[in-house]
C-alpha cells in the first residue's frame, strides 16, 4: 500500500526529529526516562503524521500538551500549526459528548414504555447487550479521545487508530532491528 509507506516515511522523519530533540536537550537520562521519551516522540510523530487530522490524533496531541514536562518537545516537534486545532476539537468533543448524553436521556425516557417482542430470547439479548456495552466502554478507554464519541464514530476511530498503530509498530521494529545489527557488529568488532 503506497499510502501506508508515505505515512511510514512521515512518521519516521518526525520520530527521528523528536528523538534528536530529546538527545540534544538532556545529556543524562536513565532507562525509563529514555523509554518514555522514545515512546512519547513516537506517539506524537504518529499523531502528527496523519495529515487529515482525525479526532484520536488530536486527542493524543492535546493530552501530551497537558503534561508540562513534555510541552517543549511537543511544541518543537509540531511547530505552531497545531495550536488552533486542539482547541476547536475540544469544543467539538464537548458538544458531541453533551449531545450523546442528551440522546441517551431521550432514549431512556422513550424506551421506558416499550416491551420486548420476543420473550424467548430475552435473557440472551440482555446479556449480549450488556457484553457489548462493557466492551465499548473498554474500547473507549483504549482509543485516545474515545470517551466523548458515540458508538459509530468510535468504531471508525478505532479502525483508524489500529491502522496507524500497526504502521508505528512496523517502523519501530525495523529501526530496532537495525540498531541491534549495528550494536552487535560493534561488539564483535570490540571482541576482535
Amino acid at each position, binding site marked *: 500500500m503506497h499510502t501506508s509507506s508515505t505515512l511510514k516515511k512521515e512518521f519516521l522523519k518526525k520520530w527521528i526529529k523528536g528523538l534528536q530533540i530529546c538527545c540534544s536537550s538532556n545529556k543524562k537520562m536513565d532507562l525509563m526516562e529514555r523509554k518514555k521519551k522514545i*515512546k512519547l516522540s513516537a506517539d506524537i510523530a504518529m499523531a502528527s503524521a496523519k495529515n487529515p487530522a*482525525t479526532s484520536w490524533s488530536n486527542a493524543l496531541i492535546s493530552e501530551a500538551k497537558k503534561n508540562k514536562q513534555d510541552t517543549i518537545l511537543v511544541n518543537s516537534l509540531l511547530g505552531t500549526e497545531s495550536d488552533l486545532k486542539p482547541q476547536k476539537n475540544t469544543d467539538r468533543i464537548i458538544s458531541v459528548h453533551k449531545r450523546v448524553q442528551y440522546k441517551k436521556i431521550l432514549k431512556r425516557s422513550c424506551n421506558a414504555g416499550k416491551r420486548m417482542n420476543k420473550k424467548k430470547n430475552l435473557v440472551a439479548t440482555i446479556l*449480549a447487550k450488556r457484553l457489548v456495552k462493557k466492551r465499548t466502554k473498554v474500547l473507549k478507554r483504549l482509543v485516545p479521545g474515545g470517551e466523548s464519541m458515540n458508538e459509530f464514530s468510535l*468504531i471508525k476511530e478505532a479502525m483508524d487508530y489500529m491502522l496507524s498503530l500497526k504502521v508505528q509498530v512496523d517502523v*519501530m521494529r525495523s529501526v530496532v532491528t537495525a*540498531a541491534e545489527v549495528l550494536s552487535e557488529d560493534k561488539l564483535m568488532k570490540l571482541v576482535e
Partner: protein
Amino acid sequence: MLHCHYTTMNIPGNTSGTDVSVLERQQARMKWRQQQQQGLSNDDHCFRGLVEIKPDPGLQYGWPDFSDACQDQLIPPLVADHNLKKRKTHEDHKQKAVSKENGVKDKKIKRCSEENSTETSPKEKPKAVETQKQEYIHVRARRGQATDSHSLAERVRREKISERMKYLQDLVPGCNKITGKAGMLDEIINYVQSLQKQVEFLSMKLATLQPRLDFDIDSLIMKEMFEVPAIGYSSEVANSTYFQVNSLLEMGNSPIDTMLRRSIGGPVSIPETFVVSSCFNQMQPGVTWDGDLHNLYRMEIQQESTTIPFQHKFTGSYEGSNLKMEL
C-alpha cells in the same frame, strides 16, 4: 434555514436494505425544499464541505472497496430525471416520509448523509450536479416491522454499525469466523491492546540499545530504504543499492562522508542495507499479530546468522560512525 452539521465521519450510506422509492422520495423532497428556499449558496457550501471531508483517513488505507463505493456515490449525485414524474404520483408516500422525517428530526442526531442502494446506482445516471443537502436519514419501514421513527433510526444505526464491523473483520487478523458485535469488539480490544504493548516493548528495547538516543546512521539507512522500496529482495539488486547509498552519503553535509566513501568498499554498505531492508521487508507481507513476537525473535536469529559472514566488511562504516558519534 436548515443547517448541516458535519461530523468528522463520512457516512457513505451503503445500506443494502433501501429501496428505489427511498431514492425517489429523497429527490422529491430535495426538489420541494429547493422550491421553498431560495438561497442555494448555503447548499453549495454544504456540498463543498461534503466533498472536502470526503477523503477520509480511514478510507485511504485498508478499504479500497469502501472508498470506491463512496466515490461512485458522492461525486456524481443521485438526481435522476425520471423521478420528477414520479414525484407527482407519490404524494401520499411523500406525506408519510414527511411525518417520518419529523420524527427523525426530534432525534438529536443531525447528520448529513447520502444514501444510495447498490441496485439503483448502475441504473440511474445523474445529470445535473445539484447540491445534495440532506439532513435526514430516509428509511422505509420493511414489511412486518415497526414504523416508529425511533426504531427506524435505530435500525439505520444498527445497519451502519454492522457495515463497519464487516470492515473491521478484514482489518483485525483472525476475525473471519467471529460473528456478532460482542465477539468482534473483544477481538478489536485485544488487538489494540497488543499493538500498544508492542509499542511499549519496542520503545523499551530501543532505549536499552541506544544509550544516547543517537540515530544518525540508522536514520540515513532507513530513509534510503524508504525512498527505494524495491531494495533487498535479492542480492542481484545489490549494486543499485550500493550506488544509491553512495549518493545518499554524498548528499550529507558532515565531513565524515568522505571518509565513509573512501573506507566503504563495494560490498560493505550493501550487507548493511540488505540486512536492514530484508528485516524491514520481511515485516511487511502478511505478518500476523499472533506470531509477531515469534517473528521478531526469529528475525533476530536470522540477523545473527547473516551478520557473521559480513562482520569483517563492516570496519569502514564503523570508523565513520564512531567518529560521527564523538562529534
